[in-house]
């Protein structure tokens, strides 16, 4: 369960988040929508410990991460998988190596890497292309690699910040289908997007943000803006 209680955040004199109250239950699929500058990405950054809240409280389960220490951040990030619009893959590593890298740098054993990496590559449907480099596959396949990398720690939460922003409609739908499949396994998925078609197709919970505030929270929502 993710809880944000009265969270505010400002940079200099610009208030980015204003008194956000949000509760996301385990296993939910939540879309957070809003126009640019609404505060969506700041909220994502707070959830992964990249930014600190100004006021308020943030908790992941029983873990209060409001004042999380630098030492604890790596442990938080192993519990929350994150994917971004620009994929963030290493161009000189194969798709499989990009996925393994996440386990290598967090101290995973070789045995674990050998066991986990092929299985996540299979989940995202890239077992046949695992030896290719990012520039040899499509944008959709690159994003699927990023999802596989996010899954290697078997996170309870998957944060997708504009994952379809760089993709055409077909690839975008494939990624959303993959996220839905991952959600079916019990992983909480938080999708940050401003893609109206996707949000409307999903027919899941939609939290709408505007100027740093939540203006709507619908259980089976549509894109309002």
């Amino acid at each position, binding site marked *: 369960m993710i809880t944000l209680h009265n969270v505010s955040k400002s940079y200099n004199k610009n208030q980015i988040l204003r008194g956000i109250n949000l509760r996301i239950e385990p296993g939910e699929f939540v879309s957070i929508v809003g126009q640019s500058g609404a505060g969506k990405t700041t909220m994502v950054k707070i959830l992964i410990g990249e930014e600190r809240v100004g006021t308020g409280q943030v908790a992941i389960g029983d873990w209060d991460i409001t004042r999380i220490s630098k030492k604890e951040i*790596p442990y938080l990030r*192993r519990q929350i998988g994150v994917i971004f619009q620009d994929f963030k893959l*290493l161009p000189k590593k194969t798709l499989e190596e990009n996925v393994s890298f996440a386990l290598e*740098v*967090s*101290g995973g054993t*070789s045995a674990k890497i050998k066991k986990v990496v092929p299985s996540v590559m299979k989940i995202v449907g890239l077992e046949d292309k695992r030896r290719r480099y990012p520039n040899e596959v499509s944008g959709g396949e690159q994003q699927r690699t990023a999802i596989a*990398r996010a899954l290697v720690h078997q996170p309870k939460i998957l944060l997708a910040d504009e994952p379809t922003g760089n993709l055409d409609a077909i690839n975008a739908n494939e990624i959303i289908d993959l996220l839905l499949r991952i959600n079916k396994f019990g992983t909480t998925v938080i999708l940050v997007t401003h893609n109206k078609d996707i949000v409307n197709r999903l027919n899941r919970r939609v939290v709408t943000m505007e100027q740093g505030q939540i203006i709507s929270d619908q259980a089976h929502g549509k894109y309002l803006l």
Partner: protein
Amino acid sequence: MQSFFRIIKFSFQDIARNVWLTIATITILLIALFSINILLTARVISDNAVVAVREKINISLYIKPDASDSEIMALKSQIAGSDKVKSVVYISKQDALESFRDKYKNDQAVLAALKELGRNPLSPSLTIVPKDFSQSENLINELRTIDSPIIESRDFSDNSVILSKINSITKRVNEVGMFLIAIFILTSLLVVYNAIRVAIYTHRQEIEIMRLVGASNFFIYMPYMVSAFVYALISILIVISVFYPFLSLLQPYLEAFFTGYNVNLLTYFVDNFSLIFGSQFLIVLLINVLASLFAVRKYAKV
């Protein structure tokens, strides 16, 4: 253990990918280390020169052959009582003769002349060792004022001026050397800091991803610490491999210059190998690790 090998692997990848930066960093470290060792060599040579010149300082009072033992011992005690005197050695007629024979054992002409003479022509003497060689002139003045009927002659072959010049040059060389070392240490710090900064810049994407996927801070900064260690190790190994042949080349010239004295730089550096190069390695390692820590903290936000 696997993490350790991965850190080593990442570090060597860094070094190989930034090969020119590695070369520049090691070159600066080499210049600093060479300066330190050249200064140390100069120090050893000057110390030997000081010893050689000190041995040339001869402050002796020659005693009349007919002086009694009690008179000689009284004079010896009087001189030894001075606060400028470290010790007074009494050399009897017989000791002087034996020392003379030993000194000229290879010079048959001198020994033949001595035999021809048929008696011991040498006088007993008191050899005075000053407490402070730079103050030997004051001691000589004091000895000149001693009025004793048993003193036959006084020999003050004073090299204190040369000695004080050597001391002064040594002091100046040390001062300039320390200044140069300070500059090289500062330069090394900046160069290593910059090298790590550039390495971080070229790996910023990798570091960003590492942080994103939950790599521990230890895993992010350790490859740079290992690189710092490798820079220090390579530098010190190159210095050792170049400096010893250099000393071997220098040694014959030193032996020719300090004829009759045991001046062996090579032996000095071999005997003190661990102290000299161990401490230099530790200092360079400390500089590298500090510079890397600052760079990683600032640019990798660890």
